[in-house]
């Protein structure tokens, strides 16, 4: 099960993509999975072990996620507690 971070706009996904790449943090830039939303958007998918690191990066760089989920393909996503 991975963590998927969804954003309010493409701008935030792009900004985090650049920062994580520059810092060499493992992640995937993905389309928002259909299990989470039918709307087309970009999201960041990471291993759960990286969530605290990535949350700190988002806070430092004023990047606002809209939601964070526990995600497994084909299954109902679970809201990550502490995403507020």
């Amino acid at each position, binding site marked *: 099960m991975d963590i998927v971070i969804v954003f309010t706009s493409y701008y935030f996904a792009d900004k985090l993509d650049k920062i994580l790449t520059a810092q060499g943090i493992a992640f995937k*830039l993905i*389309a928002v999975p259909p299990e989470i939303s039918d709307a087309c958007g970009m999201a960041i998918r990471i291993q759960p072990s990286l969530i605290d690191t990535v949350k700190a990066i988002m806070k430092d760089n004023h990047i606002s996620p809209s939601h964070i989920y526990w995600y497994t393909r084909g299954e109902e996503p679970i809201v990550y507690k502490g995403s507020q």
Partner: protein
Amino acid sequence: MNSTKGIIVDVRGSLCPKPVIETKQVVDKAPGEVITTIVDNEVSRDNVEKFGVSKGYSVTIAQEGKDFYLTLVPGDMNHNDVTVNIDTLQESAHVGNRVLLMTKDYLGEGSEELGRNLMKTFWTCVVEADVKPKTIYFINSAVKMVVTDSVHLDNLKELAKAGVDIAACGICLDYYGVKDQVDVGTITNLYAITDSLMNEAVVKL
């Protein structure tokens, strides 16, 4: 050791696509004949082998020094029993009949930056798709996606592992100076790409 049978096509000293072109000329003129094509480099070896297999020949390869002798036996002469690997069948079951022609290293037009991000997400979608493309060709700037340090390598390697044929144009790799940095798939030629465009269900991106 003499590894020559049938009609001999000696294209040592030639670079792609000449070995494939000359082999094809013989195939067209003498269908049903055994052909031995002799090349002296691995790229030509791989491309002639792929061409032979695509035309229904069984291909065996012998090496003598730096030369490769490819013997192409027409399908109707190949009486060997075929052992089917179940794992291969299961992998191939997820590969459809679409051919993707990637013409640049970003998707769409209007914003290259957006297009590069779209490309990242696109490959992830293809990896997760239930039915994958049969072949993905890379031409012009798209060849940058198959070389060392490409951000798309992990996804493309997964596709290759799933049975998708990944091939980049040799002319384009040479133009961008990255021919020795291919990290996934094979190096192909415009002849093979054109053949596919004429005969298969192609999606150009």
